[in-house]
């Protein structure tokens, strides 16, 4: 069995995130990292192998600019066996529908029985990529999974829904998105970081995947940003710097003043 893990390059959590007022796209010029939710997906792939499933290979797949190679190198250090970067000037500015089309085409070529993704991207906060990729691949889908088990050719998953937890089963090949509750990702060892440079990292273009370029990139986007504006103003809150618990009195004074105690 082979596993493909989709990994998105997102601005790092510590970077100042902004939308470029000219392109109306996210400014991706700063530090980047693998989408943390996708790191949970990669960790789960590794744990599936460690739990004894016969996993032939784990391939990390990313669509992004050339710079996204760094993110795939991290994925290789974390435990992916090889990586595929789909990169092409024609893909820049793709919307969700376009990105799903590209990712589905890319993972579709990896001979993967299980496609794993994080349940959302940390930069866009959308929960949609797994379901869109599954529809393109015409494969069963389970999203927002907090516990995952493989039982022969069947995925057994537990996911949180509005009323509690759903228990869902799906035959392989399947597409699964995972929540950040599913595991605790490991940190790569120095040896793994060094070894990552020797693992295969392949770059493919839109033409390599046989993509219809009318469906991708800024021109192919069906969702178009019209305006960017500041949020409605709100009152500035009171900020208290605590030292060893000394803020407690100030908090009690605030509560008392507000009549809350």
């Amino acid at each position: 069995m082979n596993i493909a893990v989709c990994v998105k390059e997102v601005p790092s959590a510590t970077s100042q995130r902004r939308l470029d007022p000219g392109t109306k796209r996210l400014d991706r010029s700063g530090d980047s990292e693998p989408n943390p939710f996708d790191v949970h997906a990669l960790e789960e792939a590794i744990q599936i192998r460690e739990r004894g499933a016969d996993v032939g290979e784990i391939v990390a797949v990313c669509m992004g600019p050339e710079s996204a190679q760094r993110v795939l190198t991290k994925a290789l250090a974390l435990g992916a066996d090889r990586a595929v970067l789909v990169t092409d000037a024609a893909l820049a500015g793709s919307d969700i529908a376009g990105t799903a089309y590209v990712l589905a085409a890319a993972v579709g070529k990896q001979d993967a029985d299980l496609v794993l993704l994080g349940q959302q991207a940390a930069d866009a906060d959308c929960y949609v990529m797994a379901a869109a990729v599954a529809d393109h691949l015409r494969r069963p889908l389970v999203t927002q999974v907090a516990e995952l088990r493989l039982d022969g050719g069947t995925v057994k998953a537990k996911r949180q829904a509005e009323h509690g937890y759903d228990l869902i089963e799906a035959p392989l090949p399947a597409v699964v998105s995972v929540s950040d509750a599913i595991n605790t990702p490991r940190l790569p060892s120095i040896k793994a970081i060094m070894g990552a440079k020797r693992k295969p990292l392949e770059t493919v273009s839109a033409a390599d995947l046989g993509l219809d370029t009318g469906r991708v990139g800024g021109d192919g986007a069906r969702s178009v940003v019209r305006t960017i504006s500041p949020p409605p103003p709100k009152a500035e809150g009171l900020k208290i710097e605590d030292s060893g618990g000394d803020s407690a009195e100030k908090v009690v004074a605030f509560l008392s003043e507000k009549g809350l105690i």
Partner: protein
Amino acid sequence: MAGLLVYVHHDDGELSPQGLGLLARAAELGGEVTAFVAGSGIDDGWAGSLGGHGAARVLVADDAALGGGLSQPIVDALAPAAGEADAVLFGAGVVSADVAAGLAARLGAGIACETTDIAMADGGLVATRPALDDTVMVESGFSGGPGIVLARANAFPVREDASGTAPVERVSVTVEEWSRAASLTGREEAESGGVDITEADILVSVGRGMGGPENVPLVEALAKALGGEVAATRAVVDAGWVPYSMQVGQTGKTVSPKLYIACGVSGAIQHKVGMAGAGTIIAINKDQNAPIFEFADVGVVGDALAILPKLTELLAARG
């Protein structure tokens, strides 16, 4: 069928307030709004009641394959009608999001997520969302076919007066073999009994920043001293620190207490949408960059493990 089509999700006949609220908002835009419900054994009277929430008519997809609580068969059922609509709208929810995303792929349609408002502009629907931890508002339109809108949790309130009915029309349904390959085999319901946190005037919530389940008693003690109840984020519920019934947020409960004290809660959007309606929000977090400080009335930058016992002690001393 031009116009707006609103998919209203239901869980065994219980209509989602997220879908009903969006339906009401869509109706305010002035055009004729069609609601779409899918399931197995749907009653016409029940479906027609969506007229009271703003639907001019209701499309019903009724098939045994649609009663399983999973998204993929619903995409099959919805796609033909969706392809003829100007836009297809979805309230927040786990299944609704999956249907919206699957439909976007099926139709090659643009999708706008986390939508907090919709409007008509230049002859088409536009969707507005807060982005990047709510630091910027982004308005999007659609081209080349229907637009798909997925709402943020609790962005659209349900009509208070929902009397009225709408004509019901049944659509033919063809479900693909692969769409029904996954199956819902069971459910772990949220525990009933205990305390209903949606009724509490004061909530003290526990987030991952509290370190571990061994520190939950600190939160319980503070809640007790205040005469309040304990709430939690999804992360700590999924980690098993506290039961699901305490969870606030997108997939948990929506609360609006007079006072909400968030301990070690980062304030991710998924939590914020469940508690932003609280009267006064006090946040205690070690990370001064935590998003919760952006919308807290009082932000305490510090270690909740050190602060909570002192706070509890001071409050207890007041009697």
